[in-house]
């Protein structure tokens, strides 16, 4: 368990953060720039001292203003991957990687150099200096360096924000692999919803220094009341699916979820692979009867659950497809014309090519993590 209850003042921002979450899998801190995300993990790491409060990780008190406890960063054993890498320029990649490892007592070294080098594919870089690395390579080395310190928890502060899209694609699979192979809880700070949907299990929403909601990602992303925080443009629901079939002829992959089947552009994944899919509200249309002679491949029968606050010209509908949430963003005019009401049976039309490919994340058995929590 990770328990945080801190307050602090940072210039204009009053940070009052209090939440508890399981220290398993990937916990994402999501909020706009300046919401206090980085300050919060700096407090966790011991780099910023809260004015008042308490931080407890798996039963160990890291900070407690009342009892006068404030462990220095080197005793907290939390790995930290910074946005800008922060590799030591005077050391080789190998020396960078081993910097934290050398300071871990031999008995507590679970992760070794060979494992990390293999995992991150950095064997060719070992003899180089950080100055001679590309942005993506630097970030991989920074990740490896933090892992080799054998931390109890890994903090990642927008580790991909400084990279362009191809470089992000280079790093994301490594983070997914970490989750699958190392049983290391991660706190991941980001303001990019696609990244979070792809990676996170638990979501912590921060706004103006306050925690607005904490819970499983699927649940929070489908709540209409949190939509202003999860982002208007980005609004959408997250579905957990499995790969159910491949259509080789047309290059399509079929995904099964609670509400039916979705056809998406080809994904090179084995049958049965669990996958998380994000469907943006603006890519979903509504029909009262199943349409014919239409190019859209995905027609999912749904029931209207809730109709969001009308902000002309748009309105968001929350639909339930066999229990799975889908959002649709339509015009207020269409809502009135079709006389849509909660409880009504409708058909959600989703363009295959609109499904957010960046957010297609592998779903590895998160139950395994949950079982191993303290």
């Amino acid at each position, binding site marked *: 368990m990770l328990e945080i209850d801190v307050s602090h003042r940072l210039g204009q921002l009053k940070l009052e953060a209090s939440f508890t979450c399981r220290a398993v899998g990937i916990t994402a801190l999501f909020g706009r720039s300046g919401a206090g995300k980085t300050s919060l993990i700096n407090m966790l*790491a*011991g*780099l910023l001292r809260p004015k008042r409060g308490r931080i407890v990780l798996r039963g160990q008190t890291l900070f407690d203003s009342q009892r006068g406890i404030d462990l*220095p*960063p*080197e005793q*907290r*054993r*939390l*790995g*930290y991957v*910074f946005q*800008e890498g*922060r590799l*030591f*320029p*005077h050391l080789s990649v190998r020396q960078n990687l081993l*910097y*934290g490892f050398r*300071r*871990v007592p031999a008995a507590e070294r679970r992760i070794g150099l060979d494992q990390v080098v293999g995992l991150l594919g950095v064997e060719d870089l070992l003899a180089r*200096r950080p*100055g*001679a690395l590309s942005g993506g390579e630097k970030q991989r080395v920074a990740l490896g*360096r*933090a892992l080799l*310190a054998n931390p109890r928890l890994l903090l990642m502060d927008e580790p991909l924000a400084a990279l362009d899209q191809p470089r992000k694609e280079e790093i994301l699979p490594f983070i997914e692999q970490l989750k699958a192979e190392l049983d290391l809880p991660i706190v991941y700070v980001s303001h990019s919803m696609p990244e979070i949907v792809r990676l996170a299990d638990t979501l912590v929403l921060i706004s103006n220094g306050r925690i607005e909601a904490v819970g499983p990602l699927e649940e929070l992303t489908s709540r209409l009341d949190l939509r202003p925080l999860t982002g208007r443009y980005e609004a959408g629901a997250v579905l957990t699916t499995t790969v159910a079939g491949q259509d080789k002829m047309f290059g399509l992959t079929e995904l099964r979820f609670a509400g039916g089947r979705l056809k998406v552009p080809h994904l090179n994944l084995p049958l049965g692979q669990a996958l998380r899919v994000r469907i943006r509200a603006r890519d979903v249309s509504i029909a009262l009867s199943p349409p014919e002679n239409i190019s859209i491949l995905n027609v999912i029968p749904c029931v209207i659950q809730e109709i969001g606050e009308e902000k002309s010209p748009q309105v968001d509908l929350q639909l339930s497809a066999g229990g799975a949430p889908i959002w649709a963003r339509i015009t207020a005019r269409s809502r009135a014309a079709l006389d849509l009401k909660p409880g009504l049976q409708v058909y959600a039309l989703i363009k295959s090519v609109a499904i957010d490919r960046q957010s297609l994340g592998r779903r590895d058995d998160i139950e395994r993590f949950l079982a191993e929590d303290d």
Partner: protein
Amino acid sequence: MPELTPLEIEALGLSLRVALWSVAVSLPFGLAVAWLLGRREFYGKTLLNGIVHLPLVLPPVVVGYLLLLLLGRQGPLGSWLYATFGISLPFTWEGAALAAAVMAFPLMVRAMRLSIEAVDQNLETAARTLGASRLGVFVTITLPLMLPGILAGAVLAFARSLGEFGATITFVSNIPGETRTLPLALYSLIQTPDGEAGALRLAVLSVIVSLAALAASEVLARRLRARMSG
């Protein structure tokens, strides 16, 4: 240039010895003061900064005279040093090294302070999260990264020490074989009839030694830079 005379060799050897000791002794103090001024905020920081820079603006003779007052046999610190350790600094080459160190100290501190301020403190916090203590971070991150600045400070101090005249002659006098460094030997020759030829030789010698020190530091600095970026 014809061979050096025994007197010239003596003056040169003494100068090098005085300058090297001056740098070696002031290096740890210079680092400490540079760190204090560059990284810490404390009451009296402006005062410390002023005192450190005093030798830069005071006439060297004044510094030498103050050293004599303080460290002479009758001086408050000098009498204690003599009574406790049997050490007497005036009129010795060790005293010359001290005078040179005091005069060169501001130059050394300035170079080091600039370099410590240029070290990215984010790298230091990163090292802390990797398990290094404050001292560990200083030794493994801060110190190596400020090495070019330490080198520059040391070379400046060395060159300044080689040329030290006013404070030296006031504090330790001009004793052949003990405190007569190159500049003092040069001064003595100028005071002597028919000494100009010898003075010129010493002047050329001084130029050569200083240039050699600068060249050596340049080579070292280049190597350091190559190590950082390559």
